[in-house]
């Protein structure tokens, strides 16, 4: 369980996180979505105590992170920026961290195998690709077998196999009852992994909901009708709150009503339908719609400052 309460973080005049309140529950994968610069990484750094909040607080399982007697077994974190000395081998990086907690070498080798770095564990991290660095970061996060996992853009730089692998891994970890919180600036990366979603823009909370509700609640849903008697149907459907367009002859796109209403109307008047379908806005659309305001706001502010 991660609890963020009225968290605000300013860097000089720049407000990176603005009065953010939400919680992340165990047992499901929670996605943390927001465009670049929204404040995701800042929030995550605040959770593990690297950045001190300007006001408000971040707690894990009821405690401030620094109060834990064994932080690595409570929270495993993959942070966005590089957090490894380039001159050290992957094995020694993990070993140095393991030793702080008395975690045995056996566990170090275990996580190395788990993330698939066995063959390069003795090599200096400086020569690692982005994907290998990401795998090492995941190994670090898993080292203490923690109850809470915080992963900042973990998919970044991973190949398609790696992406599939991490999805299964995270879902499995959540199914064991762990709290899994991962960020991304792309809805598509979270759609297949996360069940719950916290969306921020400009450091402010935009949505805290299930992926399902997020899409149906914000995505534009339209009814698409194909009918030889489209023009007649359009007249019958017209009313307040309903907008109808016809992208091509015999096809209607109706919003502001539901497929059931369209079907009943057609039946009542004996009109023939060839197709009747509800088009949900995609997850990405929904996200775009939610963040568009925030992004526009920033752009206009930047424009004004210039």
């Amino acid at each position, binding site marked *: *369980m991660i609890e963020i309460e009225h968290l605000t973080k300013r860097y000089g005049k720049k407000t990176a996180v603005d009065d953010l309140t939400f919680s992340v529950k*165990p*047992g*499901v994968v929670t996605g943390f979505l927001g465009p670049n610069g929204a404040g995701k990484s800042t929030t995550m*750094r605040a959770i*593990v*105590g*690297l*950045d*001190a909040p300007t006001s408000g607080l971040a707690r894990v399982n009821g405690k401030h*992170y*620094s109060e*834990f*007697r*064994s*932080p*690595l*077994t*409570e*929270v495993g*974190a993959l*942070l966005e*920026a*590089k*957090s*490894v*000395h*380039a*001159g*050290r*081998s992957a094995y*020694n*990086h993990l*070993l*140095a*961290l393991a*030793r*702080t*907690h*008395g*975690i045995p070498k056996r566990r170090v080798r275990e996580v190395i195998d788990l993330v698939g770095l066995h063959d390069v564990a003795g090599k200096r991290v400086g020569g690692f690709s982005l994907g290998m660095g990401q795998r090492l970061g995941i190994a*670090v996060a898993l080292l*203490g*077998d*923690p*109850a809470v996992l915080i992963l900042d853009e973990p998919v970044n730089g991973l190949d398609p196999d790696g992406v599939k692998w991490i999805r299964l891994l995270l879902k499995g970890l959540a*199914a*064991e*009852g*762990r*709290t899994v919180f991962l960020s991304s600036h792309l809805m598509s990366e979270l759609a297949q992994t996360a*069940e719950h979603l916290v969306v921020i823009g400009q450091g402010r909370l935009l949505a805290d909901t*299930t992926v*399902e509700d997020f899409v149906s609640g914000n995505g534009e849903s339209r009814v698409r009708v194909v009918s030889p008697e489209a023009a007649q149907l359009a007249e019958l459907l017209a009313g307040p709150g309903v907008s109808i367009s016809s992208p091509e002859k015999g096809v209607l796109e109706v919003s502001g009503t539901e497929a059931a209403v369209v079907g009943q109307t057609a039946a009542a008047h004996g009109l023939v339908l060839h197709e009747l379908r509800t088009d949900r806005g995609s997850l990405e659309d929904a996200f775009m719609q939610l963040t568009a305001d925030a992004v526009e706001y920033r752009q206009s502010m930047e424009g004004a400052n210039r």
Partner: protein
Amino acid sequence: MTAAVMTDRPTAYTPPGDYKLSAAGLLRSEWTKLWSLRSTWIVLLCAVVFSAGLGALIAGSIPDDQAVGGAETAIGASMSGVALASVFVAVLAILTVTGEYSTGSIRSTMTAAPKRLGVLFAKAAVYGAVVGVLFTVMVFITFFLTQALFGDNGLGGLSLSDDGVLQALLGYGAMIVYLALLALGIGAILRNSAGSIGFYIGVIMILPQLATLLPWNWVSDVTPYAPGNVANTITLVDPSGQALGVGESWLWMGIWLVVTYGLAGLLLKRRDV
């Protein structure tokens, strides 16, 4: 579907209880970090070769009929390499901290030890101990080597049991440890490699020497108390007549370390990583 997922949701996972963050763990971690970097081996090897090498070179180049003599001159000449090697040791001390900031590994370090201060003290303890052991050994090796090379001139023939010799040799070892700890603390305050090395060499090493050239008398009254100078007395065979006595020398080393680590600790707690 959603309802099923809700009821199937497992109870919260409990982490394994047998791992604990500890002071001993932090020390072992810093030991691993120190020796797992190639730069440590290279710099310490250079420092060791330099200590004995420069001493031997100087000792070997003094002709037998040279009119110089005395234990003070002999030890000073023998240990000139050791004194210069302290610069290598100080630079490596700085890098053990600033290297973590420049590479970002400090974020891993501080997530493992979020109280932070333990990391600073573990770093200082491990590095101080390594330097202390290594250079105490080097000081004695260099002493015996140079004594053998001095031969028949007035600098040879010293023994450890001669007045003040053992004390001066141990003083060199202690001075190097003090300077290493001072440099490490400066690295923790400034966090930046170039800035810290520049500060150490410019402000700690060179500035007090330059200041004595100034025409005001009070400057030479103050310079013995400068952080880079307070250890000088303990390296002398005969420390009488120095601005700082042996006891004061130790006291001021303590004062400067407390000031440096007090500030470093305060900033470490306050600043974002």
